[in-house]
Every structure is written in C-alpha cells, then in structure tokens.
C-alpha cells in the first residue's frame, strides 16, 4: 500500500468532518467557554490536529466527538496561557464554572444558538453574512472575502468586529422565545437567501455569472437549519425555493455565457431530483393547511413553473393567484413587478405595462424594472421605446450573463 492509499481516504474523512462537524465544534465550544473568538481558534486548532494525527492514528470512530474534545482542550490551553499573561480575568471564571451557561428551556442543539447569535439583528447585515459563513459554514476568511469581492484584511476586520460586538455587547447564545422566533427566524433566512442570491445572480464584471460555491453553501446551511427547525414552514419554504431555482442552473446560462429566460430554457436540462425534493417540501407545507409565508409562496410559484413540461403549458392563472397572496403579505414594489410579469402572460402585455407605469418612480434605479418594461414594449411592437428601456436596463444590470442577454434582445429589435 503506498502513501496515497492511506492519505486519500483520511483526507476525505477530514474534509467530510469539516463539512459536517465544523458548526457543531464551534457551537459547543462557544457555549462552554462563552466566547466565539476562543471557539473559532480552538476549532481551527482541532482540525489542524486532525490533519496531523488522523493519518498516523487512524480516523477516530466518532470524528465529531474527537474534534469537540480536542477543541475544548485547545480552548483550555489558550485560557491558561491568557491567565498566565495576567489578562482576561473573566475567562478564569469560566474555567472554574464548567456548567453550561444560559440554559433556558428545553435542551437545544448548540448550533441553533450559534446561528441565532451570528444572525442577531444588532449586527449589520454584511457582518451577519460573513459571520454565518465563517462560524456556521466553516468557510475561511479568504474564501468569504473572495465571495464578496473585498480584501482579506477588510473581511477579517469585519468578522473580528462582529465577534467583539457579540462578546462585549452581550449578544446571547440563546434560541429566541416562541414569541420572538418568527421574526428572528426570518432574520436568519434573510442572511441565507442573500448568500444564495449572490451566488445565483453574481454581480461584478469579472465574476462568473453563477457562483455555484455560494448557492451550494446557502442550500447546505438551509438544510442544516431545516434539520434544527423541522416544523418551521418558512425554513422549509426557503429550502424548497432554493432547490427549485438551483434545479434550473444548467439551463439558465447558455454556452455563450448569456442568460436564458425561463420560457426559453431547455427543460430537459433541469435537475429532476432537486425538483422532486422541492415539490415534496411544497406539498408537505400545503398538507399542514397553515397559512403560507413569503418563502413558501415563492416556492409554490417556482413549483408551478417547474411542473410545466413546456413553457406554454405553464399554469399562469395559478401563478398570478399565488402572487396575489404574496402581495397581500408583502406589497413591496419588487413583488408587484414580479406579479406583473405573470399578469402579462395571463392578461396580455398592455395590462402589465399599466401596472409597471405605476411603479416607475419607485423602481427607476432597478435594472429588472427596465428589463421587464423593455420586454413588454417589444411584445407590443413599440420597438423604439423598447430599445431605450433595454439601454437603461443594461446600464443598471451588474450580472455579465444578464447584460449579454439584454444586449442581444435590444440588437434583435427592428
């Protein structure tokens, strides 16, 4: 047996442990020592120890337990060092007090406390995103910096500042009470959806139009959250929504790097397994008979789209009805705009254009408003107006594949 035969399965075991256990190791260590910074360092050291020890000693029977124990030991070592240096008196207290602080209500998975701390509303959205990807997702600081096109040092500062605020301002490691839970869960889902969207419609002239690393990470974290909150309808809804969007990824960008509109996509290129999983989640929520939230409605809309074998068999009546429900829940201009797209299919472009005219002032800076308007004008044969609208949309769009699509559409006008 040569070295590679040993190294490869061990390396795979370490990679899998990192994917599956990182959040748990951080969460347990953070709860025990009450400090995210210590937990992060200890977890990183524990994984470094695994890289060193596992090829020699073999992969432990329970890798997660091995890593958590090792991380705890590393944390204790660090706190002892800090005490010897005469700093951090508080942490000396923690070493003596081995009981779990902040245990309130039924025992919850530590990872859930971690998610709620990282997505706390007292942190800026960009800090929540960075912290969640680092602490829950296990991405490295350079990976997160690359994902959001900022310098490593700037991203490191952002994460450090957020950790300091959690520790200093007393952001708790706690699963919110039942009364607070819906609001706080929607805060967590907003973070995950933002990560997904940045992958799904990546901005910037030099990035790939679709960043599969980010969409995959967002789906993985949403799956994790679903495991922790299995009865939460909006968590299930967001997961279904992501799966049904992700299922169309291969058909969404042409070989030439151009965005392909939903109606023009090759539906045989859609991922049937992801669609089936997404549909099952939507059905599960419908079966509860409980009123659907925003993500569940968006998932249901996508379920209708992905149920149609051809674009011209889409049940637009159903889609408009779902958008009507969504508008009642969230009457924001972007939702009204998306509803208008469906209305155009059901009642014709003229009716949709009248809806868009009422949104003109609010959405003047939004590329999708002008892209939608351009398409409606084109269908009405108003080529000159369409050309102007495509031009505005191209100026405002940040995604390379979308710009390519809009430019071709404009150039095809008579």
């Amino acid at each position, binding site marked *: 047996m040569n070295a590679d035969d040993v190294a490869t399965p061990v390396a795979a075991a370490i990679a899998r442990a990192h994917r599956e256990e990182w959040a748990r190791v951080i969460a347990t260590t953070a709860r025990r020592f009450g400090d995210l910074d210590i937990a992060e360092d200890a977890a990183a050291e524990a994984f470094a120890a695994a890289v060193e020890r596992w090829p020699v000693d073999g992969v432990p029977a329970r890798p997660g337990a091995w890593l958590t124990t090792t991380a705890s030991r590393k944390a204790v070592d660090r706190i002892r060092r800090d005490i010897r240096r005469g700093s951090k008196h508080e942490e000396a207290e923690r070493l003596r007090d081995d009981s779990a602080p*902040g245990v309130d209500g039924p025992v919850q998975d530590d990872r859930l406390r971690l998610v709620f701390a990282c997505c*706390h509303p*007292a942190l800026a959205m960009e800090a929540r995103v960075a912290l969640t990807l680092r602490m829950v997702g296990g991405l490295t600081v350079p990976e997160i910096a690359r994902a959001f096109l900022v310098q490593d040092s700037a991203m490191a500062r952002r994460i450090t500042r957020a950790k300091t605020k959690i520790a*200093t*301002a*007393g*952001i*708790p490691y*706690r699963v*919110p009470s039942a009364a*607070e839970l819906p609001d706080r869960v929607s805060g967590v889902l907003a973070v995950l959806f933002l990560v997904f969207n940045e992958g799904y419609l990546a901005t910037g002239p030099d990035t790939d139009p679709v960043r599969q690393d980010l969409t995959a990470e967002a789906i993985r974290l949403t799956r994790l959250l679903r495991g922790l909150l299995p009865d939460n309808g909006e968590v299930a809804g967001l997961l279904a929504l992501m799966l049904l969007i992700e299922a169309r990824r291969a058909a969404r960008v042409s070989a030439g790097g151009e965005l392909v509109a939903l109606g023009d996509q090759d539906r045989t290129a859609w991922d049937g397994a992801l669609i089936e999983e997404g549909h099952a989640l939507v059905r599960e929520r419908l079966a509860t008979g409980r009123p659907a939230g925003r993500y569940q409605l968006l998932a249901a809309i996508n379920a209708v789209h992905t149920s149609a074998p051809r674009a011209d068999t889409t049940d637009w009546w159903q889609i408009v009805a779902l958008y009507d429900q969504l508008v009642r829940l969230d009457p924001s201009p972007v939702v009204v705009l998306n509803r208008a797209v469906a209305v155009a299919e059901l009642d014709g472009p003229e009716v949709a254009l009248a809806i868009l005219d009422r949104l003109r002032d609010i959405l003047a800076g939004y590329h999708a408003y002008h892209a939608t308007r351009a398409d409606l004008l084109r269908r009405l044969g108003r080529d000159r107006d369409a050309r102007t609208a495509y031009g505005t949309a191209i100026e405002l769009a940040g995604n390379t594949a979308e710009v390519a699509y809009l430019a071709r559409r404009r150039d095809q006008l008579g």
Partner: protein
Amino acid sequence: MQYLLSVIHEGTDLGTEEELVAVSAFNRRLQADGHWVFAGGLGFPDTATVVDNRDGRPVVTDGPFVETKEFLAGFWVLEAPDLDVALRLATEASRHCNRKIEVRPFL
C-alpha cells in the same frame, strides 16, 4: 451586565407633559423589575462646559465638546442579563420618551 441607554434628541423643544408621565411610570416598572441602576435628564448642549487639563494647564471652554444636530438629552443605566433584554427595554424606553435610544454595554 449593565447598559447605557442614551436618549438621542434633535431640536430645542423640551419633553412634553405626557412624555414625562410615561417615563416616570416606565421608571417605576424598571425599579420593580430590578433593571434600574440610575437615570437622568441633561441640560441642553449650550449649557455644557469642557475642561481640558491633560497637560496640567486647565483650559475651560464654553459649549459642548462636539457640535452636532443630534445630542444626548438623557440616559438610563440599566441592569440586564444580555443584549436581547437591553434591546427590549430600549424599545419600550424609546416609545415612552418619544426619542431614539442608543444602547451600549459597559465594559
């Protein structure tokens, strides 16, 4: 933990009678619930005096240390187990005194 809840004010109008009544009732509740440490209202910034004796030669200046449109009009020092509780109290405080509230932890 202890938190400083700063009352952020803009303009030259004083608190209204209704606001004073609401704040007094809120203060009694803070005392009953064990959150109360200290609180007070402050004079306008134009009543401030800055003293600088860093180099042993005291200089006294009339006016606030920094001129801003928004300024500190009063504060609470409250005891709360964590930021969630402090934010909940700040949410109530903001309603009662009808001003924005900044929450900061004591070290």
